């Protein structure tokens, strides 16, 4: 009986805080994306033509987001039934956009106008329980192009 109560409390806490954090995070992501819209990012390997002399520098952004208890249970249930793991979709979306944002922020701070060759790496950090996913890491990196005024 106590186990069930603990489980339900964890579930409710996970859901409450998870939703709240997610909502706040998305608002912040949208706001900052708008601020950095001027900085163009591409996955292409070569710089756009006619940019003049450039200095290149590696920029990166790294983010780790934890799975909340509700999402974990929800995903576990989904693993029995199959289908879209909707619980993790928003989680990864947040991680991806946040990682790119941090990379762009770094590029912006170094005065870049473009970031090319942008790539993403993801990793799940398990807490030693084998199959259980603890948190997800997304790492974004690219080459920032800083225009040189000769």
């Amino acid at each position: 009986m106590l186990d069930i109560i603990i489980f339900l409390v964890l579930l409710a806490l996970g859901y409450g805080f998870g939703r709240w954090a997610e909502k706040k995070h998305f608002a912040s992501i949208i706001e900052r994306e708008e601020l950095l819209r001027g900085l163009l990012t591409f996955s292409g390997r070569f710089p756009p033509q006619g940019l003049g002399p450039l200095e290149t520098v590696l920029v990166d952004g790294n983010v780790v987001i934890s799975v909340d208890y509700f999402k974990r249970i929800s995903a576990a249930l989904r693993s029995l039934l199959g289908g879209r793991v909707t619980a993790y979709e928003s989680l990864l979306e947040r991680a991806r956009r946040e990682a790119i944002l941090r990379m762009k922020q770094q590029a912006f701070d170094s005065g870049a106008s473009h970031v090319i060759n942008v790539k993403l790496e993801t990793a799940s950090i398990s807490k030693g329980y084998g199959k259980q996913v603890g948190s997800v890491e997304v790492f974004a990196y690219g080459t920032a192009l800083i225009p040189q005024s000769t």
Partner: protein
Amino acid sequence: MTEYSNPQIPEGINISAEHPLKDFFLMLSAISFALVLAVLLLSMFAGQLVRFIPFSVEQTLTENLGQWQLQLPETDSPDEESAAATLPDDEQALAQSNTEKQVYNARVEAYLQQLGNHLLENSKRPLPVALHYIDSDIINAFATLGGHIVVTRGLLTILPNENSLAMVLAHEIAHVQHRDPIVALGRGLTVGLALMCITGNGDGAMAQQLLGEVNLLVGLRFSRDAETAADQAALELLLQHYGHVASADQLFQYLRRHQGDAPIEWFSTHPLHDQRIAMIDRFAAKHRLAQMETTPLPAWLQISGHSIN
């Protein structure tokens, strides 16, 4: 530069719009439904299949347990502790009273066995039963694997005559004849094993629970249908033996009055419901005789609180 641009990406294209709670409860209800269905089906199949286990296997199983040592939780057992502190004389007296007790218990057991055999006399090819007596205040009687039936001293003290005792014995005997113990155990084990497989809870907790199920030979639960069938069969046995079913409902009447009393463990294994009493009353009404003499319990049976109230 025309080919390179970062268009505004619309929000929410990578995320399902569905509310997470709705998704969660849909999945939960689907899985619960499937689980309940699977458990019900398994339990049903197990109950049917387990009947194919020969009774002799049951007997061998319980034989392998060695001495029949069902330990009911004792309410008071100061004998061992006080014995160490007493003088040798007292110890001797205690030992003597202990052997006397053993002799007496054996006599009660023989009497119960005899009564049980009498009840089965008229049955065709009955499964053999072995009756056991436990010197305990707890009011209980139960049937378990291998035809073993256990009756406690507590139960004997509340029964006014042999007829009412015969009803209890006949009820437990009927459980054995219907093979209810092995069905209950087979069902419990199958469902436990299935749940263990599904939840993957193999780290001992569930296995321990499963073992507990085996150890709980004392507390095998029979289904309500099995109880009703056992009552019916018990009344038939009683009718054959005594020619009437007077006093058959004595125990139930007593239990109804004392519902919720602590030492009555009967309730945990035999859920009481008015339907059962009504069924016995109907049967009794059908077979009412002008003269219905009840047989008293043997006088040597040292039981206190003979009156039933």
